[in-house]
């Protein structure tokens, strides 16, 4: 059996996108890396004492500090003169990354540490039972953004974290999805070839939290890209440098597979909500030029929108 650097025998749910994602990342990184991990599903399902799934040096400290711990590991390697040989990777879920651990991530990027940060984006706090995070998408049903008589679920848009990190001026920022495993591999390798702080936001479906069948993880992870809801993009030094173009599918195709959106398929009001979600996809398509033929048009309209100067 070909040995992976993330071993079987971990305790993730069947079909877990994050388990898949973590394996892709560490296999792409290779043996000479050190990983720091925030608290979350990944940490729990890979390190229940006395077993560990990790074949590379790995450390978990707290929920919010993987970026800071990685900064310390990086500084230590720099001090030891080993930084050219050993790569440092910090990782965490969307919750730890966009919310409680965002200060530490922002600090790490601002200081320019030579660390790749990977955010496993399953769009909610899964480890604690599916609560809303800053990366939970609009109208998603989570236990702290439940639909109800007075609510359609999460009432805020998904925090645009890749753009935010890119706005920090990080040398490399990318989004990726486990629906495109080779692309994940390429981006991890590319990131590790660049010096300074790098950020990859990796879309990882969670069958348990999203209430889709385990076998649909791959499909869901492709559809989110193909609808335009999660564009695959790359930024270098804050500038958008590459996007994966799509032939947009309607968002329903993506939403209907998942229990977390099932409340939108009940009545007319739900339809109106789906239309709003379509608007989000359309805005992404426009903003990032995801569709080839519309490329020029998009540029056009951008020009018109252009800032009025005073």
């Amino acid at each position, binding site marked *: 059996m070909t040995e992976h650097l993330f071993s079987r025998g971990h305790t993730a749910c069947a079909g877990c996108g994050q388990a898949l994602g973590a*394996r892709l990342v560490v296999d792409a990184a290779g043996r000479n890396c050190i990983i720091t991990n925030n608290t979350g599903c990944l940490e729990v399902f890979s390190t229940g004492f006395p077993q560990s799934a990790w074949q590379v040096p790995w450390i978990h400290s707290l929920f919010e500090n993987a970026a800071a711990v990685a900064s310390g590991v990086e500084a230590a390697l720099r001090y030891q003169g080993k930084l050219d040989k050993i790569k440092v990777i910090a990782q965490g879920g969307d919750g730890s990354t966009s919310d409680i651990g965002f200060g530490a991530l922002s600090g790490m990027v601002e200081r320019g540490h030579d660390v790749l940060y990977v955010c496993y984006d399953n769009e909610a706090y899964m480890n604690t039972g599916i609560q809303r995070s800053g990366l939970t998408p609009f109208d998603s049903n989570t236990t702290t953004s439940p639909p109800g008589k007075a609510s359609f679920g999460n009432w805020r848009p998904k925090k645009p974290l890749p753009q935010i990190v890119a706005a920090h001026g990080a040398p490399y920022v990318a989004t990726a999805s486990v629906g495109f495993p080779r692309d994940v591999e390429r981006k991890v390798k590319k990131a590790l070839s660049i010096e300074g702080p790098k950020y990859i936001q990796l879309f990882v479906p969670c*069958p348990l939290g999203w209430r889709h069948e385990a076998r649909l*993880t791959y499909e869901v992870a492709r559809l989110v890209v193909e609808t335009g809801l999660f564009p695959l993009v790359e930024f270098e030094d804050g500038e958008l440098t590459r996007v994966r173009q799509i032939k947009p599918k309607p968002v329903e195709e993506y939403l209907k597979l998942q229990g977390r959106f099932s409340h939108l398929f009940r009545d007319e009001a739900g339809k109106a909500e789906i239309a709003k979600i379509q608007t989000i996809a359309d805005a992404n398509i426009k903003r990032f030029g995801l569709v080839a033929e519309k490329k020029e048009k998009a540029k056009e309209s951008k020009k018109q929108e252009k800032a009025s100067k005073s």
Partner: protein
Amino acid sequence: MYAPLITKPGSSLERKTGSWRTNLRPKFLQKDCIACRLCYLICPEGCISGKEKNTFISDYNYCKGCGLCAGVCPKDDIEMVPEGETK
């Protein structure tokens, strides 16, 4: 002296999560396989191995029966079958 407890790398191999599989498991037909390695890449357990065409196989000691490999195979060369059936 009271030592910190330490876990060993990859010791999760001791945990045979194959027992979690209660309904279906993948059957690798090994007929039309083109060795695209997609199944290998996509398995969340990392329990698929194989190199040449029609050699891919899952380690049932760990396979949780999620069905991703079957879904991803471009040649429909993997089928999910009830637990009872033989490979």
